[in-house]
């Protein structure tokens, strides 16, 4: 990470303020304005639309290995996803992914 203190504070304050304004929108100034159905539909998909695109490159080309694909990390990601889908339990998913990561790092 290579940011000046000012840049870090711009990120923290900008993210804090921006997030607050998104949250306050309809509870505050927009009041009883109604969002059109297609906008509500789009908003429903923001987390699933952002997270995979962000994570996939981190899984396939991890910075820790200099960007080379690494079996332990790929298997750990698959384990986390499989456990999360199967159990719907965030903790099980994290622990399973971590266990697979350490097993993989030990084996390979």
């Amino acid at each position, binding site marked *: 990470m290579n940011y000046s203190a000012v840049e870090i504070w711009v990120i923290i304050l900008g993210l804090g303020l921006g997030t607050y304004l998104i949250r306050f929108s309809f509870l505050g100034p927009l009041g009883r304005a109604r969002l059109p159905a297609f906008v509500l539909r789009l908003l429903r998909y923001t987390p699933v*639309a*952002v997270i995979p695109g962000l994570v996939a490159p981190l899984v396939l080309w991890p*910075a820790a290995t200099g960007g080379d694909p690494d079996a332990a990390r790929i298997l750990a*990601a698959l384990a986390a996803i499989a456990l999360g889908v199967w159990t719907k339990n965030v903790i099980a998913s994290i622990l399973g992914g971590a266990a697979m990561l350490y097993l993989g790092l030990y084996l390979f």
Partner: protein
Amino acid sequence: MPVTTTKTAFWRGLRGGSPFILGAAPFGILFGVIATEAGLNIVEVMSMGVLVIAGASQFTALSQMQENAPVIMVLAAALAVNMRMAMYSAALAPHLGAAPFWQRAIAAYILVDNSYAVSAAEFERRPDQSISAKMAFYFGCALPVWIIWYAATLGGAMLGQTIPPEFALDFAVPIAFLAILAPLLRTLAHVAAALTSMVLGLALAFLPYSSGLLIAAAVAMIVGSEVERRMGRALP
């Protein structure tokens, strides 16, 4: 008596929100640890946790920062993750919109996935409560996670300085993200959006300043909502 109803509503909310401590605590700790390892000092880590109070977007900002993305791209990606909260805000407005301004201003600050989900379900079940009972329920269900989030972030930040690199904590962020993501894959539309985002995220990874991620996210949102619309039309 109104006071009794308000109190009852608060306690009912507190009970509804308490189970989410189990989910929020590990994420707060993890954020504190990773952010500290990444090089933020404890004031910066705590400020982000307190001002943003939204785990997924904090992790997004952090992973963009680890890639040294420009400030504007860090903000764009992290705020994109939080756009769903506009939907939560719109969904709660019919129930809480008549409350005093200062109450709504605080309510907005603690609007997170679980306070939305628990209170939206409650207001659907009991739509005829007074506005003060609804607000009391809302604060009750948000309170446990609100407090735990601060404490867990601080604990993680203090812990972070003591964990050696052999633990491969670089990979805790992807795993945390996947753990957030997996339970969201409830419908075909969600799965379609996720696959689109993954494929485009990889294909466009060569674009500078993480701009590929924003394109991938925009297309994936459209794919998800289109699949939902067409499936909905096919259903009776």
